[in-house]
């Protein structure tokens, strides 16, 4: 990786991180191209090495279906953790905003490796919990703010 350990591999020794990254394959996504679509089978988790990924959800705007950005992911961050969580379907669409390089690690390869290396597996699992927990906290807060506005509109 070009800039230290990605968030999924924090706390791992350089050797552990190197072995984990070696499970993956490097992929390049051109600016504007899709990495995955909402509802696709999620077999790989992606660690961003360079570029930027936009995560979107479909929304009906002015009579047309539009992809609305809900998050942006930058180098060092992880996208596609749906690959590690049943039912293994992507819940967002991911598109490269710039030419982007990622390391794609398949669920099967990662699971097999971590099963044989429990200490490394524990650290990766804790990192994954942090990534997912952060997303949950963020969207819970955004949802509550929106609810507050709805209540204010209803009571106005």
């Amino acid at each position: 990786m070009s800039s230290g350990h990605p968030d999924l591999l924090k706390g791992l020794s350089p050797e552990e991180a190197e072995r984990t990254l070696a499970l993956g394959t490097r992929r390049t996504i051109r600016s504007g191209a899709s990495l995955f679509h909402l509802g696709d089978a999620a077999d790989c988790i992606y660690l961003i090495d360079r570029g930027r990924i936009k995560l979107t959800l479909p929304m009906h705007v002015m009579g047309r279906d539009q992809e609305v950005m809900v998050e942006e992911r930058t180098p060092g961050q992880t996208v596609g953790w749906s690959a590690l969580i049943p039912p293994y379907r992507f819940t967002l669409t991911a598109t490269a905003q710039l030419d982007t390089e990622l390391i794609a690690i398949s669920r099967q390869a990662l699971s097999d490796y971590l099963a044989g290396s429990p200490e490394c597996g524990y650290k990766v699992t804790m990192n994954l919990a942090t990534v997912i927990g952060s997303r949950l906290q963020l969207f819970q807060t955004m949802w509550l703010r929106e609810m507050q506005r709805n209540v204010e509109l209803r009571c106005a």
Partner: protein
Amino acid sequence: MELFLMVACMGMFGLGITCMAFGAATGPRRDEAEPATAPEPVKAEIPARFFAKGGDVPITIHAKVPMEVLMFQIENHVRLEQAAAESFIEFPTAEMLHSRTMSPLIQ
């Protein structure tokens, strides 16, 4: 014969009085008879909301906004809302939770 005609005339007169009374009781009021002069209710313009479906919410404020501009405003709104949410997570207080942003979609 005269008595019969007198009774008939009084009956007709009574019937007429009854019809007039009934009409006055059930007819429209004068102030209801001129709805065209009443002012039309003004529709309140409700700001668009990120998570809400269009449904019954008027979207008149965006009717003249080009799609590109509206999409830019939505993306900007999402970024501002995320920043506000991250600030709350960093310093969780009720004030931070409901702090206002500069988003044009909620002004």
